[in-house]
């Protein structure tokens, strides 16, 4: 099944609570590695900040589970903004809030990919950034393209990790890593890394949910 159709039918196959647990667990497992990546080219707290955000989502999973999907996304985005405490809060928060708004404003199921694209554009605007700047956008934009092409969901996690890997040779143009100039080259962007982890966790959960 293609990813867009699968995501569109996800509310019936995977609970939001289970999705949150999967994402939180993925971040918890990799928090030290994300801190390490951030230590190399930033302030070293990306894993800790993301975990604080996903701990907060986990604490609210019953509430989030009870809402319609668009409201769930908006509320989850607000929680991330309030709890992450770094630039990642507004970026991931904007992604979820705008995705929720796009889905809530009447985008039909088979247009999930256009809602996702809209949300990624909003993240770019929030970060005053673009693809190629060595940010999470270097994962989000190509993933949005794959969704648009109705790519198989089974293949998305591997592709997402490859996109994160592709930030290694880039020079950072936004965020603290940009202060390092050319010295930012040779390191994976921590935001791209967490973004790939989360996309992979969501895709795997949806895939297993649909098979169940």
């Amino acid at each position: 099944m293609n990813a867009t159709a699968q995501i569109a039918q996800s509310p019936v196959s995977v609970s939001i609570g289970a999705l949150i647990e999967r994402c939180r667990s993925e971040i918890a497992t990799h928090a030290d590695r994300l801190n390490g990546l951030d230590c190399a080219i930033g302030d070293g707290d990306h894993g800790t900040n993301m975990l604080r955000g996903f701990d907060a989502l986990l604490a609210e999973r019953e509430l989030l589970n009870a809402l319609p999907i668009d409201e769930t996304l908006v509320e989850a985005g607000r929680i991330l903004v309030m709890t992450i405490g770094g630039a990642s809060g507004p970026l991931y928060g904007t992604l979820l809030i705008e995705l929720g708004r796009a889905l809530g404003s009447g985008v039909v199921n088979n247009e999930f990919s256009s809602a996702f694209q809209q949300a990624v554009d909003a993240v770019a605007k929030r970060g005053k950034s673009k693809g190629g700047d060595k940010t999470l956008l270097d994962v989000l934009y190509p993933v949005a393209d794959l969704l648009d092409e109705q790519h198989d969901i089974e293949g998305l996690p591997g592709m997402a990790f490859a996109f994160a890997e592709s930030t290694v040779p880039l020079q950072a143009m936004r965020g603290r890593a940009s202060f390092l100039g050319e010295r930012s080259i040779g390191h994976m962007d921590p935001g791209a890394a967490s973004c790939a982890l989360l996309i992979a966790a969501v895709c795997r959960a949806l895939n297993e949910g649909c098979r169940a």
Partner: protein
Amino acid sequence: MSAATNNVGIVIVSHSPLIARGAADMVRQMVGDSVPLAWCGGNPAGGLGTDMAAILQAIEDAWSDAGVAIFVDLGGAETNSEMAVEAIGAPRSALIAICNAPIVEGAVMAAAEASGGASLARVVATAEELSPS
């Protein structure tokens, strides 16, 4: 209503509570209590970082009908301040400006300008003259 509420308010947002408080102390030394002033620093867990809820509170604490000028240090302080301004929403959001200026010098110069009753646009312009264009 105190006289201070007629002047533009100043908000200082740093990743470090020590920097935010220190900058606020320097503003107070310059202008006393003639401008509404609030600061916040640190993430929700108390470490270095920024906290949107604390920024929202600081804007409320420094609110003036003449407007509020926000001074930030690094990326997250700016993006979280933008989220806070959007959360406050129209019409009040139109009276809040996030200044492109160095946090300490910007806040002190803006406060000096504000203490004379200058408009928000004038206060922001004064602070932003410090930044290379």
